[in-house]
């Protein structure tokens, strides 16, 4: 085996590791926003009939892009920041599970999510 072969094997392992970290990062982001996460402190989405949680999806736009979003824009936004839409004012939480600011907490915890994905301990 030549040095060139060793480098090729090493690069292949790095590529696989990168792919694993990328996949795991997306999975942890989705979980943090939707179900909550000890890594970020996000409480996850509130649950009434389950429609809000079910509205969130994670799809691969291409090999290097994951899209995580919700189709319930107005309902989702007021559950995120507590600002009632369309009228404004406080949007009171009705669910005993989940809470506010899961997207913001996930963004603030992105570094911790990547660290967890790299460590493979989540």
């Amino acid at each position, binding site marked *: 085996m030549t040095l060139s072969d060793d480098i090729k094997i090493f690069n292949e392992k790095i590529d696989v590791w990168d792919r694993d970290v990328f996949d795991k990062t997306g999975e942890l982001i989705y979980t943090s926003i939707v179900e909550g996460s000890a890594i970020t*402190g996000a409480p996850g989405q509130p649950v009434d009939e389950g429609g809000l949680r079910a509205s969130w999806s994670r799809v691969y736009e291409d090999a290097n892009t994951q899209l995580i979003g919700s189709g319930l824009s107005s309902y989702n936004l007021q559950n995120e920041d507590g600002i009632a839409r369309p009228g404004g004012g406080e949007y009171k939480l009705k669910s005993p599970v989940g809470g506010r*600011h899961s997207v913001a907490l996930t963004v603030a915890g992105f570094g911790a999510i990547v660290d967890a994905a790299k460590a493979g301990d989540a």
Partner: protein
Amino acid sequence: MIDLLAAHLALRGRATGLVVATTGSVTLSATPTGFARTAGSFLDDGFVVGMEIASSGFAQAANNGVGVVVGVTDLALTVSMFAVSGAAGVQTITRPATVVDPAAAGRTITAGFPSFRAWENKPLEPGATIPYVEEDFVPATHKVLTAPANTGLAEETGLYVLKWYGVPEIGVAALRKSNTALAKLFTPGTHLAAGADIVRMRGDAAVVSGQILQMSTGWAVLKLTIPWRAYSANVVAP
């Protein structure tokens, strides 16, 4: 772990100390529609329509209070004063006009944090066209970074979110200037004493302002999200 109540109150206290615009202590007079000056400029001082102001130092008691700016020129500040009596649910808001008060020195008008504040778990009944703020204090993560567990360094993170409801349909200046001034109180590296601990404004995920949302029933709202971090010595209870 840190005293979360102290952290919450420290963040709140930082916000309520906000000064967006001020005349400083200068010579001012009052008119039936607001305040006037013969030197200096309300515009240069940073006042814009939609800001809530507090006035002080005037001889006539009616001129010392709070109001919302409805017009600004260099030499005149037109203000809709208001006064609140009673608690939320039974409160009464009156709109007393300013009264004529000849010019004198030592008077101040300041635009700062709204006097209507929807603190967490407290009722608030907003008044029409009077700005108000809602807060969310959101503790998030807690972990021990160093060994041993007892006396090890613990890290906690969270968010402090302020939602500033402003006067609608007057443009973006009042909300954006106020929000920017507020953000400058929480820039990365800012330290706040919280009991025996220190709350630090994060730099890896720093304070960020949002989009001005014009709501359908009479408010425009702008959110400020402040990520914070705090360290403390972990204590294992005996």
